[in-house]
């Protein structure tokens, strides 16, 4: 066993490396190097000592990896290890850790395999991941088989049904788009029940017919019952395979939900048929009486309805429990996982349909749970579920591949294999056509021919069938080995061949794709209105149609269920309002996302504004998430929307921001005040007072400012980075004209921006950049047209290295008057690391355009280009070292590299203490360590949102420090 596992790991390692060579042609070399050791080192160093049985193989294998330096290390250390002699300094406790170690290693292998597949973009778009995983499994299996002559790793049905399948089904159920599902429930049920029965019987009987006709070898010792049993298990469309393949194809939602819903709901049919036939096979066909058939039907009803009920009961329990978790937020996700899983296990316990149970538990509880639990818990649930499902899927496919290699388990019969393949394809197509013809009588959106082709072709078989066939008892089903082989072929054919070809087919047939568009607020509203209208029309026409019942259900839900299952604080929220908030947040995020784009494209568009712009289908961030969201994402929307019941204020601020971006500037003020209404009267007074104070202080401070600034500067210079000074000094030059107009410059020295790290602020790890500007002397200058401001952004200097700076330049606010836009660096948080690189690149390319260096203006080295609005705008960047924000166009710094302003800089901290007290208010609004007044204000406003990203314009004139508060949502 040990030797085997060792071998296996080494194989994986070498496999991974070769894989890299194959797929990673376009990769930078360091990737290969870094990837290989990651896989190899634990393997080689840990296992080689154990490997005495097959040292030759192990060494040979590791020798195959020229790019893995760690291999040598592993070997040498292992030799060393063995030289120890009688007394072992290090104990080898393999048997102690064996099980978890193997499991963890498998997970690692699976995950690394996934990474490797995704190195080559072109490759993964052509070949579905599931195919790659099966191939990898085949290779691994072959290697293990060659090495050990037997196959220790199998897709164990117990493991599969108890652990792997539930994670996938749980994820699918919980994130099932409920309305879409129920709108199509009729069709789904039809295909799941009638379609599966049809497939099962037809395949079974026809195989029996073929056998009678002699096309199947005599050795296949199977009667009618055996074939029916086989037909039952081979006929069910598999949720895992469907998800894996369809997820990458992006067909339209209706098509997807029908195929996927069918694959989930047919579980009951499969389970019952399987059980019934097993019992029939056991007692022998001769002893089956008519009553048994009726028992079978009764059993089907019990299994399906019972499973559904169990699921719904657990859904209610789960929703009810989460109502009371307010004090123990941390375990909220655990409740979700536990109860959903318990729904599955309980159904299994009573041999009901576990998949049905779990699916309905997920669908049922989702609405209430999502509303009850906190935002963080929501995210946790989402990502954990996706992670688990993704890894389970990976393992399933790899093990499918590995299991296929084990020759001892199966026996080949060409007749059986070929006829089974033909039958399942033909009957699937015929069944779909027939049922669709029937359904189209009732459906108002008929399923077109193309849809039918896709549905037939999408009928993938998968691991469920395989696990079921492995579960067969060879004593009773004599032809089990043949069935296993056939099942494997069928699964491989559907997943690999159909999976590979389905994408081209979709393109070729021009199947309507899913649009990644999100509904606009108009759509939400009108949709609600139309629901009401149609309900009313049904009432008037005296029909109890779909809308009638839907309306009845919603009344019930509102009056009883929601009351019982939702927190009081959440209960009174309106659905439409939630939708509205979601949309706003989405916009806000996309605006952040485009904060980067503004630099290059000078274009601002909100995705939900259908009429204004052509839909930017997905913004970069969402795109990124979507692309990388692995296999099992049913509802990716959750990733980029932050629904908020509890963070209302934050949301409102978001709205302010988002709304602001495209609103006439007039609006802003009213909105601003409106949304801060919640702050409360007293708070506002406080703020008012504070602001006035600050204003006065600023005024007095102005006079001293220059001096102080110089001093700070010089101090800083002494400390070091002269080069940076130079850079920054260039900036003013570009804005010379502005500066002339605005003699009063408030230079925010970078040091001033720093906050005391010790200050307890949740956000302080993220730099916040803001532009503080002193009361603008030249008000006429302010109304800059947006385009003008945008131009600024495009200039290299204006486009500071960090997104923050870019956002600073966002001109939206410029119209507002002299208000300095406050931008938070938080935005960068949202940008995945990978994108950051791209960001830096784009920045540096901009930099090359930089205008010639300007004569240094030592006094206001940091006068930013942003000051164009007539006020000398200071870019208090996070500090030079921090963002490198102001380092653009550095002549001697060579600071072409812009870094994301993430870390806190030592320098900043050091200087912090030196901050003049007067400056603090300005910064405090931005920075975590606010002076007491601000701080208190802030506290009250908590919870602050974290999505802060947008540009806020302070409501009133530039002198108002409070208004410069960074966007806190």
């Amino acid at each position: 066993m040990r030797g085997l596992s060792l071998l296996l790991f080494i194989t994986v390692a070498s496999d991974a490396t070769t894989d890299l060579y194959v797929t990673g042609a376009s990769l930078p070399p360091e990737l290969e190097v870094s990837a290989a050791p990651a896989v190899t080192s634990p393997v080689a160093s840990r296992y080689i000592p154990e490997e005495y049985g097959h040292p030759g193989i192990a060494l040979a294998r590791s020798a195959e990896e020229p790019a893995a330096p760690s291999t040598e290390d592993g070997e040498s250390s292992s030799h060393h290890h063995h030289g120890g002699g009688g007394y072992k300094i290090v104990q080898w406790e393999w048997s102690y850790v064996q099980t978890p170690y193997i499991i963890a290693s498998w997970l690692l292998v699976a995950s690394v395999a996934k990474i490797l597949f995704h190195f080559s973009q072109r490759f993964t778009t052509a070949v579905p991941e599931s195919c790659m995983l099966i191939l990898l499994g085949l290779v691994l299996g072959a290697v293990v088989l060659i090495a050990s002559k037997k196959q220790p790793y199998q897709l164990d049905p117990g493991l599969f049904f108890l652990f792997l399948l539930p994670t996938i089904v749980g994820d699918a159920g919980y994130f099932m788009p409920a309305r879409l599902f129920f709108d199509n429930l009729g069709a789904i049920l039809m295909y799941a029940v009638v379609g599966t029965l049809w497939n099962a019987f037809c395949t079974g009987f026809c195989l029996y017919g073929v056998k009678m006709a002699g096309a199947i070898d005599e050795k296949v010792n199977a009667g009618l019952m055996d074939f029916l049993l086989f037909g039952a298990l081979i006929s069910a469309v598999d949720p895992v395979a469907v998800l894996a393949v369809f997820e990458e194809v992006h067909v339209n939602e209706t098509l997807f939900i029908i195929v996927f819903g069918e694959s989930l709901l047919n579980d009951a049919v499969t389970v019952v048929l399987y059980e019934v036939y097993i019992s029939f096979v056991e007692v022998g066909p001769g002893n089956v009486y008519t009553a048994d058939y009726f028992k079978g039907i009764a059993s089907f009803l019990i299994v399906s309805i019972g499973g559904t009920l169990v699921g719904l009961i657990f859904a209610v329990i789960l929703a009810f429990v989460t109502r009371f978790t307010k004090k123990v937020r941390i375990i909220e996700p655990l409740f979700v996982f536990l109860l959903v899983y318990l729904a599955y296990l309980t159904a299994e316990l009573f041999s009901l349909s576990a998949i049905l149970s779990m699916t309905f538990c997920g669908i049922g509880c989702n609405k209430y749970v999502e509303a009850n639990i906190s935002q963080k818990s929501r995210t946790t649930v989402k990502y954990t579920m996706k992670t688990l499902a993704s890894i389970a899927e990976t393992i399933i496919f790899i093990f499918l591949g590995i299991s296929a290699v084990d020759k001892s388990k199966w026996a080949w019969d060409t007749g059986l294999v070929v006829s089974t393949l033909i039958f399942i394809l033909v009957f699937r197509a015929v069944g779909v056509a027939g049922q669709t013809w029937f359904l189209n009588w009732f459906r108002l959106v008929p399923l077109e021919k193309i849809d039918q082709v896709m549905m037939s072709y999408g009928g993938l078989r998968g691991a469920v069938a395989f696990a079921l066939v492995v579960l067969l008892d060879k004593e009773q089903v004599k032809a089990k080995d043949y069935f296993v082989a056939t099942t494997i072929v069928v699964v491989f054919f559907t997943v690999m061949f159909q999976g590979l070809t389905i994408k081209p087919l979709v393109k070729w047939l021009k199947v309507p794709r899913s649009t990644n568009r999100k509904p606009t607020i108009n759509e939400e509203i009108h949709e609600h209105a139309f629901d009401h209208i149609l309900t009313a029309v049904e009432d008037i026409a005296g029909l109890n149609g779909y809308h009638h019942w839907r309306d009845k259900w919603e009344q019930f839900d509102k009056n009883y269920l929601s009351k019982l299952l939702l927190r009081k604080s959440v209960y009174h929220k309106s659905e439409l309002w939630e939708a509205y908030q979601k949309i706003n947040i989405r916009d806000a995020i996309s605006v952040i996302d485009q904060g980067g784009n503004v630099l290059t494209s000078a274009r601002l568009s909100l995705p939900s504004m259908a009429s204004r712009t052509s839909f930017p289908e997905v913004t970069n961030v969402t795109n990124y998430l979507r692309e990388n969201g692995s296999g099992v994402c049913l509802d990716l929307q959750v990733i980029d929307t932050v629904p908020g019941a509890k963070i209302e204020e934050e949301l409102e601020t978001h709205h302010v921001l988002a709304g602001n971006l495209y609103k006439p500037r007039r609006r802003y003020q009213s909105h601003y005040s409106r949304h801060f209404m919640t702050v409360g009267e007293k708070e506002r007074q406080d703020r008012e007072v504070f602001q006035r104070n600050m204003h006065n202080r600023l005024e007095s401070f102005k006079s001293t400012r220059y001096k102080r600034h110089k001093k700070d500067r010089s101090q800083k210079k002494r400390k070091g980075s002269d080069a940076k000074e130079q850079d920054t000094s260039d900036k003013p030059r570009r804005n010379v004209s502005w500066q002339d107009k605005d003699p009063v410059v408030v230079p925010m020295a970078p040091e001033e921006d720093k906050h005391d790290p010790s200050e307890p602020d949740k956000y302080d790890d993220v730099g916040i950049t803001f532009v503080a500007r002193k009361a603008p002397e030249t008000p006429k200058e302010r109304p800059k047209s947006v385009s003008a401001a945008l131009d600024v952004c495009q200039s290299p200097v204006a486009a500071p290295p960090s997104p923050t700076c870019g956002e600073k330049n966002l001109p939206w606010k410029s119209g507002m008057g002299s208000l300095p836009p406050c931008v938070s660096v938080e935005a960068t948080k949202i940008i995945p690391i990978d994108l950051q690189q791209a960001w830096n690149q784009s920045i540096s390319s901009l930099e090359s355009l930089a205008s010639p260096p300007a004569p240094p203006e030592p006094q206001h080295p940091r006068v930013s280009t942003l000051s164009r609005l007539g006020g000398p705008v200071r870019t208090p960047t996070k500090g030079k070292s921090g963002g490198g924000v102001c380092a653009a166009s550095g002549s001697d710094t060579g600071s072409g590299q812009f870094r994301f302003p993430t870390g806190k800089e030592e320098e900043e901290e050091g200087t912090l203490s030196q901050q003049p007290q007067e400056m603090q208010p300005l910064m405090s609004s931005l920075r975590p360590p606010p002076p007491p007044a601000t701080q208190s204000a802030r506290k009250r406003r908590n919870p602050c949102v974290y999505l802060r990203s947008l540009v806020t314009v302070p409501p009133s004139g530039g002198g108002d420090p409070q208004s410069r508060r960074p966007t806190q949502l």
Partner: protein
Amino acid sequence: MGSTSSTLLKIPNVEVLMQETGFSPAHIIRLHDRFKALDKKGRGHLCPQDFGAIKELAMNPIGDRIIGAFFSPGKETVDFHTFVKILAHFRPVDKNRPKEPNSPEPINSRSNKLRFAFQLYDQDKDGKISRDELLKVLRAMLGMQVTEEQLESIADRTIQEADLDRDDAISFEEFRKVSPEILHSRCFIKAPVIMLMERDC
């Protein structure tokens, strides 16, 4: 069904009606029965009170607007002819029906469906959904669940989103543009209103 023809004969202008609405005789009869059931006093026409007697409709937040849509301005009653014509808005668009080139646009065209919905918003019939009108609908639909301010921000946002010509109101063209296919498919097509009727008969 034996009485089909005799019932039909009782309805005046039934041929024209079927021609205009595309309802089958079975539909017409079914609707006629319903009409008679609503018309409790047997006057041959319906007045708003008759609609108000429908219990479910009373609970519908925009029920009275829909009732209002049945009555052309100034009229207190609706006869069977109008009743059927209005319901015909909700027939699914039939693709198979041979298109007569010069026939007027069918009542159940997408455009007419949207126009029906539009006029539910546009109560003053000026061809535009103003902010106030939108607010009223929102208030009706959202009820007490949100504050007036929230309503207003939703309304503002909605108008900004749809408003192309910046007149702070939504014209029908704008309305049509922001009610894209989703609405079309989800609300009009998936509503098997008249389809079910067919089954019932």
